[in-house]
Each structure stands twice: as structure tokens, then as C-alpha cells.
């Protein structure tokens, strides 16, 4: 889903650079208030694992391929703010060291995969996990968070390319095509996200920061 250089009009990539910069500014400020020392290793290790997981391109019969994105997963472990920062690190390194994703499109790619995927993924996860009690709610929440997060990210990619003139068709075509493909491929994203959360709940539930946050929220805290 990494948009290369050449797909986006200048006004589109500038707009998404600005939008992403604004959200990242707040993500940095918010993380400064809430990021605990014990979460720093998690931030690093999770970002590295997501980078490595993105190197695995799964072949899909019919001439397409997809890789795990991981924004929802990062946000479920770290919360959406630090999660977005972890994903941004991954995307910046992919762009600068490996030429994966265009330099001009970096703002749009951060918007889709670091911001939309993290925030949609996290709030879908949280709303399910806070309504369905027990680990089952968290695992289901992780599945739907992973799935809908990547579908929403793809829909935004569809908007960005659809409003750009390099594409002969507008968003009426590009959004359904991108979202449709990723809604199908996103089931794999959901399954992987749910599997990692299920395993973590069994061996080190304390690593899921948002799990703590959910507990305090239901106990009447802020």
C-alpha cells in the first residue's frame, strides 16, 4: 500500500504532509505525557518486528500480493499515539533506506498506515474489548481492528490517488477498488493481529498497555 512518487498531485501530497505533521505533533506531545519507561523497549522491539513482518510479501493466487501492515497491532500494544510514532519510524526508514514508498508520498503513506490504521484499528479494538468481557473481547477486537484499520487505510489511499490527475478515474472508482481489495486481504491482517494479541494475553498480558487503560476506564477512572 506504499504509494510511490508520481501517483499524487503536488497539492495532494503537500496536503497530506501537512495533515500528518499536525497529527504527529500531537502524538509526540501526548506520548511525552503518557509514555512510561517500561514501554520504551516495547516501542523499539515492536517497530522492528513490524518492519520485518512487512518484508514478507504473501503471494495471493491471481497475480497479487500483500503484506502485513501492523498499524492496529502497534496501537493495541502502545496506544494510538505511540503506535503512530512506531509506524512512522518504520515508514521513514522504508522510504529513505530502501526506496519503498515515494519521498513525495511519504506524508500520505504516514497518514494511511501510521495514522488512519493506528487510530481506526485502536478505537475499533477498544470499543469491542470494552463491551465484550474477557480475553475473547480483546481477541475479537484485535481481529476487527486489524481488518478495518487496513481497509480504512486503503480507502484513504484510494482517495489520495483518485483526486490526483495521474489516475484517469476519480474516487468513485479508486476508493471502492482499493478498499475492496484490502477488505479481502485485510482478513489476514485481522487474523495475524488477533493471533499476536491472543498469544500475548496468555504469556505477558501486562505488555498490552491499552488493556490496563481499559481496566481503569471501566473502574471509573479517566
Amino acid at each position, binding site marked *: 500500500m506504499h504509494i510511490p512518487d508520481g501517483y499524487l498531485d503536488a497539492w495532494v501530497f503537500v496536503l497530506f504532509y501537512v495533515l500528518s505533521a499536525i497529527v504527529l505533533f500531537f502524538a509526540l506531545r501526548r506520548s511525552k505525557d503518557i509514555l512510561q519507561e517500561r514501554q520504551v523497549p516495547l516501542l523499539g522491539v515492536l517497530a522492528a518486528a513490524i518492519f520485518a513482518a512487512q*518484508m514478507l510479501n504473501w503471494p495471493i493466487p491471481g497475480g497479487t500480493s500483500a503484506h502485513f501492515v501492523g498499524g492496529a497491532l502497534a496501537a493495541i500494544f502502545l496506544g494510538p499515539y505511540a503506535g503512530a510514532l512506531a509506524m512512522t519510524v518504520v515508514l521513514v526508514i522504508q522510504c529513505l533506506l530502501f*526506496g519503498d514508498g515515494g519521498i513525495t508520498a511519504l506524508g500520505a503513506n504516514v497518514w494511511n498506515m501510521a495514522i488512519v490504521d493506528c487510530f481506526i484499528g485502536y478505537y475499533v479494538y477498544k470499543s469491542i474489548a470494552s463491551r465484550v468481557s474477557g480475553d475473547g473481547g480483546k481477541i475479537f477486537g484485535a481481529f476487527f481492528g486489524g481488518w478495518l484499520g487496513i481497509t480504512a487505510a486503503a480507502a484513504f489511499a484510494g482517495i489520495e490517488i483518485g483526486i490526483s490527475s495521474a489516475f484517469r478515474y476519480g474516487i468513485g472508482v479508486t476508493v471502492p477498488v482499493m478498499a475492496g481489495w484490502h477488505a479481502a486481504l485485510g482478513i489476514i491482517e485481522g487474523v495475524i493481529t488477533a493471533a499476536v494479541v491472543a498469544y500475548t494475553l496468555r*504469556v505477558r498480558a501486562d505488555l498490552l498497555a491499552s488493556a490496563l487503560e481499559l481496566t481503569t476506564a471501566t473502574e471509573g477512572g479517566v
Partner: protein
Amino acid sequence: MGVEWLRERWVLLTIVAVVVMVLISPLFGIACERVGYSEPLENVGEEFGAEEIPIYENPPMPDYDVPALGNPALGGIISGIVGSLVVLLLAVGIGTLLKKP
């Protein structure tokens, strides 16, 4: 903050997972080439007449390869190790600057 956390079990397990993913990544590349590797976005681009315009043509490891080696599998593995390490260090660095005192 020290580096004691590197000895924690979950950290070691995740690092092992990263190394395994990096080592098997060339196999995925081969498999994708077999089915005609391209992502939905690339297919959409081709179908709708959009063309990539490379601006940044010489990244250090283009397309997760080290061209000087002439061996894409080895280049991919080296790219994976370097990339994972750089991401780890950068994210830990940012986290260290941001964390609550």
C-alpha cells in the same frame, strides 16, 4: 535507561521472530514473482494509467537489495537485518527522549 531489557524473555523471543522473518523473506519474494508479484495499488495504477516517477533513485539499499553483491536473497537478508536494527535504535531513541522522567 540501561539495556537490561534486552535480556527479557519476550524481547529475546521477538528478536528471534524478527531474525526468522528476515531469513525467510527471500522465499516470499521468489513465491511472489511466481504469481506475478504486484500489490493491489500497483495493479490499480497500471490499470488506471498512472506511472511511477522515481525521484529518489538511489536509496542505499534499493528495493531491499544490496546490488553490489549480485545476490538478491543475500541482499534481502542484509537489508532486513540493517533495517530492523535501524528501526529498533531509532524507535528506542525517540521513546527515550519522550518517556516520563
